[in-house]
């Protein structure tokens, strides 16, 4: 009601402002044919249908002619006459007695479509003839509903340029009102874009969410372009042109979205898509180029669907709707909007809203399902960690002449390092430390296999233990390997060590020279040799100690590890972790029980 009152208050009174007036409103002849001969004042238009201007309802899309003859009253002879034309179409040209006197917009190019104002053009100087044959060649484009509110406007020849400010303000107000549903669409699309980008931040591997955000926000930008055009006096670009760029952006985003859905990651296709958009931006490609690209996107959608049919069918159908409505924007085969209760509703954006709501629902459902799956996996990892801790021996052991301390700090929930020890019937201590290449559950499973094999191993010879382990692991490492070091500490102080690609142990602060064989699990018949050790305090480490890396990427390295190899197991592990843990850390120390104190050195 408030709006109606406002409209009534703003109703213009042209005659009061302009003096003498030759009113052109009323009955006109109209033909949907398009022939230059219709500009001829002699042309007989009596068979044409009759319409009334100003339009009382929206005229059809397409090109047509309007004609009217009017007698100039005696005494109507202004020095300069002006022709005022209402919002007849997005592009038009006016002929008076066969001479073209006015042009607005550009035929065949909706990017230059005009705001739906009444416009005034000066007529050629000189006295007006006794009768005016007015012919208007009109192109009514289906592009910018915001710019094309047809009912209303002035059609007249006047003696001085009339002020049309009030009338055009009225038209703008009505246009803004008419845009209300599209503003709601814009706000919804903006909200959807934010939602999709937030979802993408939560799941960055789902790149389709990013493209969906770009698609929705670029569609929203189209509505913003039109709204700014009817709100600002000095809009930098013609609204349809800037909307055209936004449409090109949304077409590119749609192509990327389809590629993401279909799991197409070919670099040249990405290059093609963004080259197209850049060309649009730089060269203002013809309208048909947009239709051609949108057709290519339609083909891409079909191929994508062929490639990835297992994706949700409803999503593909909705994507098809969005793609077809995109294609139609350039093709203009069907209306791009429908009228709902007197308001224009953009069909492409509406289809996109449906797609957005659907995908938002599916994304949220998937996010929740993924969360549940992650919780389940976390539970399983926790169970695996518990099992692994049960499999590994105690952190401290004592075997007559030797004391053992061990620290094990996995980099993840479960680790690929292991250590194991056993006291033989004759009082010797057998110690094993190993490292499975790789991390996570796969490595942890191999650790379980290795520990299981060690538990069943009867030999107490380091080389024999490694050979047996290698036999058991070969063919089961999935392309990986296991480094392992095995040592035997006899009650009389004799020590022997065999190594399968593992970092050599430290003996009283010096690296033990030990012949190293291939890691376990690489070749079936690998051989390992035993070497004697002479010291009384030994440190065994995994490569997670040596390869701890600080923020600069600097490794802890062999030298620093050797220098701190006389410390306790816990101190060495702490130092490596503080340097920058990026792998499992295992430290095992073995010392003669007769040495004083618990801490080495």
């Amino acid at each position, binding site marked *: 009601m408030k709006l109606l009152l406002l409209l009534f208050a703003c109703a213009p009174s042209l005659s009061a402002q302009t003096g003498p007036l030759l009113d052109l409103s009323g009955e006109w002849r109209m033909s949907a044919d398009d022939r230059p001969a219709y500009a001829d004042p002699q042309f007989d238009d009596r068979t044409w249908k009759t319409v009334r201007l100003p339009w009382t309802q929206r005229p059809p899309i397409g090109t047509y002619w309007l004609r009217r003859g009017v007698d100039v009253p005696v005494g109507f002879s202004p020095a300069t006459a002006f022709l005022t034309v209402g919002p007849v179409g997005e592009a038009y040209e006016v002929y008076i007695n066969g001479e073209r006197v006015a042009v607005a917009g550009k035929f065949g190019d909706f990017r230059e479509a005009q705001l739906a104002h009444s416009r005034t053009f000066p007529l050629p100087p000189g006295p007006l003839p006794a009768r005016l044959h007015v012919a208007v060649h009109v192109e009514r484009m289906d592009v910018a509903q915001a710019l094309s509110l047809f009912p209303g406007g002035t059609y007249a020849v006047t003696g001085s340029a009339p002020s049309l400010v009030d009338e055009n303000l009225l038209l703008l107000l009505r246009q803004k009102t008419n845009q209300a549903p599209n503003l709601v669409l814009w706000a919804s699309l903006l909200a959807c874009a934010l939602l999709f980008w937030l979802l993408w931040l939560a799941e960055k591997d789902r790149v389709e969410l990013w493209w969906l955000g770009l698609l929705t926000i670029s569609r929203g930008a189209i509505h913003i372009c039109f709204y700014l055009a009817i709100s600002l006096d000095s809009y930098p670009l013609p609204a349809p042109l800037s909307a055209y760029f936004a449409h090109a952006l949304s077409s590119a985003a749609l192509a990327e979205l389809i590629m993401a859905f279909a799991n197409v990651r070919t670099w040249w296709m990405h290059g093609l898509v963004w080259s197209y958009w850049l060309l649009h931006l730089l060269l203002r490609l013809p309208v048909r180029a947009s239709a051609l690209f949108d057709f290519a996107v339609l083909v891409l959608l079909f191929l994508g669907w062929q490639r990835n049919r297992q994706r949700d069918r409803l999503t593909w159908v909705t994507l098809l709707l969005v793609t077809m409505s995109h294609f139609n924007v350039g093709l203009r085969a069907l209306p791009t909007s429908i009228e709902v209760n007197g308001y224009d509703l953009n069909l492409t954006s509406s289809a996109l809203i449906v797609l957005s709501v659907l995908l938002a629902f599916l994304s949220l459902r998937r996010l929740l399902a993924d969360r549940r799956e992650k919780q389940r996996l976390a539970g399983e990892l926790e169970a695996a960690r518990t099992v692994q801790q049960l499999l590994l021996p105690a952190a401290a052991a004592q075997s007559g002449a030797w004391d053992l301390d061990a620290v094990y700090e996995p980099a993840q929930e479960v680790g690929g390092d292991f250590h194991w020890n056993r006291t033989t019937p004759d009082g010797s201590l057998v110690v094993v430390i190993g490292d499975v290449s790789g991390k996570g559950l796969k490595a942890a499973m191999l650790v379980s296999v290795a520990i299981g094999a060690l538990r069943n191993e009867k030999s107490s010879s380091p080389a024999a233990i490694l050979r047996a382990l290698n036999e058991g692991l070969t063919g089961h490492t999935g*392309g*990986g390997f296991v480094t392992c070091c095995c040592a035997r500490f006899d009650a009389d102080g004799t020590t022997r060590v065999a190594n399968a690609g593992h970092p050599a142990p430290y003996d009283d602060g010096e690296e033990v020279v030990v012949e*190293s*064989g291939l890691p376990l699990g690489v070749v079936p018949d690998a051989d390992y040799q035993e070497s004697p050790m002479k010291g009384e305090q030994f440190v065994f480490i995994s490569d997670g100690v040596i*390869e701890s890396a600080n923020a600069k*990427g600097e490794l802890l390295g062999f030298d620093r590890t050797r220098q701190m190899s006389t410390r306790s197991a816990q101190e060495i592990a702490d130092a490596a972790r503080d340097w920058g843990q990026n792998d499992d850390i295992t430290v095992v120390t073995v010392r003669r029980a007769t040495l004083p104190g618990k801490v080495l050195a």
Partner: protein
Amino acid sequence: MVTQTKTKVDENGDLAVLRFEGDITSHSEEAVLGKYRALNAATKKILLDFSKVPYLNSSGIALVIQLLMAANKASQKVVCFGLSAHFVKVFTMLGLAKYTSLHADETAAREAVG
């Protein structure tokens, strides 16, 4: 931060040089084994260039070991060069001396391969 491995292959008669660039990790299978498998069947001598490899993790070393084993099976001679002192020690520690030799630079490696 782990970088993606790139491999440039120079082939000349029965000699091929695989020039690795970037960290070698579990993601480097194509860059290591894929490039090795794609070598000319006539290749008898292979040089592995690690001069632009800042880091190999255990999974990456596993790939190199697989390459060495496959080359050994195919009676191809493999020579490595450009490894940092740290990884020279790691390769030595892994007992790979039976399957490859380690050299400071390409000139020494080419001399070693004959």
